[in-house]
């Protein structure tokens, strides 16, 4: 009984992956899990939202069309201001990343829903997608001129060789790590915190007797206070991920700067 209760209140169990449909291909296990389910839900929700909100194609937008347009212009402005007009060819990619992370984060905040972005492999895969895109575009557009990224102009030679270029290379290589861990850690920590305070509240309400049950109000208030913060974090992390993607794409398009 105690072990069961402990399991229920364990804040890390929410990240567990359960198989829904067992699929094995060769020696790889690619079962459809709750994580896969939430990815599909996020994708379906994004597509449905964009499709349904644009069916009318009104000149004067309704609420949902307005939301869709805001998301479009928000990301388009972000890409244009960081990566320039050239960067707009990657607009669908940045938009897909922004919306996917945003929907995964927001859906993850609904109680009993799984948070796809709380798994490092997912965020790392997204970051690697960006990295690989940057590398391909960088070398394809600039050839070896892409290496100018590590050779900034206006720096004395000795300083460049000893300090700037090694630092630039290290920072470039660590980009996918920082990019993925930032999102993952934010999601993980936020969800653990929410789960902790919520389960404290329930444990106190159930476990304490008589007048002491009032004590459960404190963690309940904390949970309520944390929820909007987490919604903000969910949005902010999607934004940060998307804007860093455009910044990296800008490096690929204009390595000299």
């Amino acid at each position: 009984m105690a072990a069961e209760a402990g399991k229920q209140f364990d804040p890390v169990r929410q990240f567990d992956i359960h198989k829904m449909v067992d699929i094995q291909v060769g020696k790889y296990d690619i079962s459809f899990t709750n994580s896969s389910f939430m990815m599909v839900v996020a994708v379906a929700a994004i597509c449905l939202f964009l499709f349904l909100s644009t069916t009318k194609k009104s000149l004067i937008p309704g609420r949902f069309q307005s939301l869709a347009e805001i998301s479009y212009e928000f990301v388009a402005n972000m890409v244009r201001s960081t990566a320039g007009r050239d960067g707009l060819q990657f607009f669908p990619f940045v938009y897909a990343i922004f919306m996917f992370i945003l929907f995964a984060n927001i859906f993850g905040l609904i109680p009993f829903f799984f948070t796809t972005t709380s798994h490092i492999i997912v965020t790392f895969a997204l970051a690697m997608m960006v990295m690989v895109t940057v590398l391909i575009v960088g070398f394809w557009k600039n050839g070896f001129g892409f290496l100018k990224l590590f050779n900034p102009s206006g720096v004395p030679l000795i300083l460049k060789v000893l300090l700037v270029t090694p630092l630039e290379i290290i920072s470039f290589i660590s980009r996918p790590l920082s990019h993925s861990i930032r999102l993952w850690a934010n999601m993980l920590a936020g969800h653990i915190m929410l789960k902790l305070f919520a389960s404290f509240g329930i444990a106190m309400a159930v476990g304490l007797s008589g007048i002491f049950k009032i004590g459960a109000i404190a963690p309940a208030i904390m949970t309520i206070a944390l929820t909007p913060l987490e919604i903000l974090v969910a949005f902010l992390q999607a934004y940060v991920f998307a804007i860093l993607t455009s910044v990296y794409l800008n490096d690929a398009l204009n390595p000299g700067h």
Partner: protein
Amino acid sequence: MNSLSIIMAAGDGGAGKVKVFSPLDFSTFPSQLFWLFLSFGILLFLLSKVLLPRLGGILEERSNRIADDLDSAARMQREAEQAGKAYEQSLSDARAKAHNVAETTRASVNAELEAELLMADEQTAKQTAQAEAKIQATREAAMANVDEIAAETAQALTQHLFTKKVTITAVRKAIKALG
């Protein structure tokens, strides 16, 4: 996976059996990667081929429409300004014309008036001259008569004085009557 097991063991409160911290459970990675690439690929495809062009089309149409409307509004304003200018022009023309007409009328009326005045003056001068001539003639005639009368009176007086005797009493009487 030793360190991961330790993390998990701590998370489990040491109660249940040792289990890997699930975000770092490598056994789930192939499945997660497969489904991520599949769903994200579908999302990217649908967005770039269908949904974003659709949304972008709506936005473009709107901005075109707004630009068109602004253009036609500017054209209409230009036309209105031209019409205003033309109106202003015709108004000032009409004003100038009216001014001209008034001026010429006044000039001709003045000239006529002047001529009539001149004529009246001439006539008056002529009549005055005639009247003066008449008065002169009358006066001369009168003057001639006065000489005659004076001569006759003087003759009668002297005749009377030197032919009649005057008594003292008559003189006294006369003086008294004067006194």
